[in-house]
């Protein structure tokens, strides 16, 4: 429905559109973008590798698997219950990845993202398999490709939780920064490594699950933003996280606006647009990174 700025002040219909649709959609884009960028940054420290992010490294796919399981086993359960199952599978999926990449040699920095991508693909295949068996293919698309066209008042509020979970990480930002020195060094500095890693992993899982449940997977935000920020201002998380959150929010918002306007009245999912931009930036990062090892 066409709305104008002056209309919001006078026309009750326009006000209705603003409150029910436009405002929630804008908030959803901002919240999701901020949360994704922050969790991407945490994930990169936990995996000790610049080229991973939760959405493409198994967390996004595990979240979809969780919703799928919940929808098949407890079809009548409330959205927050499905969310809970999804967060649990995401936690297992992310922890599995960290275990898998732990023995990989640090001299091969590109091996980690490679393993992570394929790991995500394998979980994705499991999801597809069960989706076919459970006749849920049409739902699958909405979880694997994030878009905001369905966002309305009352359907996005979970994202506040995602943002809150991401916000919690800021409280332990200093400790996570210490973790980036390596496990032994961190232990030497008196850090409870298991606790901090666990908290970081939990934040990643809850955030990813909430975003996937409400919007679907949006790739690369968590990869591109932290990389650019780390180049500009280093890895001190207490300073970097707020900037990451703002940049992520901006990226998803702009992506959604483009998707809405490029071919109105049809919509292009924000995930496709961010996917194109993110993949290009990823490749640029891959080739500008000085070769190591």
């Amino acid at each position, binding site marked *: 429905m066409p709305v104008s700025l002056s209309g919001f002040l006078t026309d009750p219909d326009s006000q209705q559109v603003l409150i029910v649709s436009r405002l929630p959609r804008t908030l959803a884009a901002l919240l999701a973008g901020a949360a994704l960028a922050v969790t991407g940054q945490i994930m990169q420290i936990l995996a000790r590798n610049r*080229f991973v992010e939760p959405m*493409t490294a198994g967390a996004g796919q595990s979240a979809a698997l969780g919703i799928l399981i919940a929808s098949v086993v407890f079809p009548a359960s409330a959205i927050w219950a499905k969310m809970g199952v999804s967060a649990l599978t995401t936690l297992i999926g992310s922890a599995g990845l960290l275990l*898998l990449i732990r*023995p*990989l*040699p640090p001299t*091969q920095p*590109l*091996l980690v*993202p*490679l*393993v992570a*991508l*394929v*790991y995500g*693909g*394998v979980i*994705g*295949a*499991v999801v*597809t*398999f069960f989706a*076919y*068996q459970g*006749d849920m293919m049409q739902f699958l698309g909405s979880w694997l*490709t994030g878009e905001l066209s369905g966002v309305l008042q009352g359907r996005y509020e979970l994202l506040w939780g995602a943002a809150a979970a991401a916000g919690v990480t800021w409280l332990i930002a200093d400790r996570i920064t210490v973790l980036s020195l390596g496990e032994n060094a961190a232990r030497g500095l008196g850090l409870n490594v298991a606790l901090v890693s666990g908290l970081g992993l939990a934040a990643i899982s809850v955030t990813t699950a909430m975003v996937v449940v409400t919007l679907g997977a949006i*790739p690369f935000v968590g990869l591109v933003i932290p990389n650019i920020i780390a180049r500009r201002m280093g890895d001190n998380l207490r300073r970097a996280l707020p900037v990451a959150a703002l940049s992520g929010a901006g990226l998803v918002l702009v992506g959604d606006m483009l998707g809405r306007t*490029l*071919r109105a009245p*049809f*919509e*292009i*999912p924000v995930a*496709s*647009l961010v*996917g*194109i931009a993110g*993949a*290009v930036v*990823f*490749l640029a990062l*891959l*080739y500008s990174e000085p*070769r190591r090892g």
Partner: protein
Amino acid sequence: MAKRLILLSALLLVACAIYIGLGAEGAWRFLLPYRATKLASMLLVGIGLSVATVLFQTITANRILTPSVMGFDALYVMVLTVLVHVLGGVGYASLPAALLFAMNVAGMTVLGMLLFGLLQKGARGDIMRLVLTGLILGILLRSVTEFLQRMIDPAEFQMVQSVSFARFTQVEPSLLALSALVTLPALALAWGMRNRLDVLGLGDATATGLGENPKSGQAQALVLICILVAASTALVGPMSGGGGSFFGLIVTALAHVITPSERHRILLPSAALTGCIILVGGQTVMERLLDLTTPLTVVIELIGGILFLVLLVKRKRA
């Protein structure tokens, strides 16, 4: 080696017989042509993709890359979408299928060569970088395709999709004929290259020393790869993305185990037979025995992905 190839052929024959015969009830008159078409398309795709993968692994000198992992079938879908975009859905559908196919393959070959050249230059011997680039490029190509598809009128796109892609479950006989017409000569040419491929596999410098220009050999192999992948993709849709990008990987890994030889006169038939056995046998098991609705490609993606992880991690530990 010859004995093992005969054994593989026998196994494939058995798989085909079971596929045609198992659970056949009712009128053979209807059933036979239907199943035979499906079987023929599986064989065509099985041979085509397996041979394409062997060629690709030889010219890139590694065992974990496949054309699908590098986004070659995503490239095909992208070229297709661009063609629809440029010609318009109606214009596209009014062109003869053979011409369309030729245009698709030509566009894909040009882009594929470009991609391959850039990759070789940029990644210079760094296999990890090459594979990672390929995976990301695949994601990029699929995102661009999706973007372009959204930019096309949805109704037009629907029409294009229905004429462009089919599944093993519903293969157009005319498309099958066209695909065979393209695949068979490409296979013959690949077979003709078997000795040169052996030499190319020794590395650029050694191949040059033996009088085999690596550049022209790679270019010829790449054109064949593009044709084979395009023909398979046109027939059954992209194997990657939706599942099965690791089909070629499974096939070549198995072929190397079953017939441990680097000679392409062994490797090519061995991989082709293995590929067909996996497709036909797998489809029989999935469709007839387990009664599953999931496409075989999803299962292949699952197994192949795990195999890929194992190969990657093992490679680095060794």
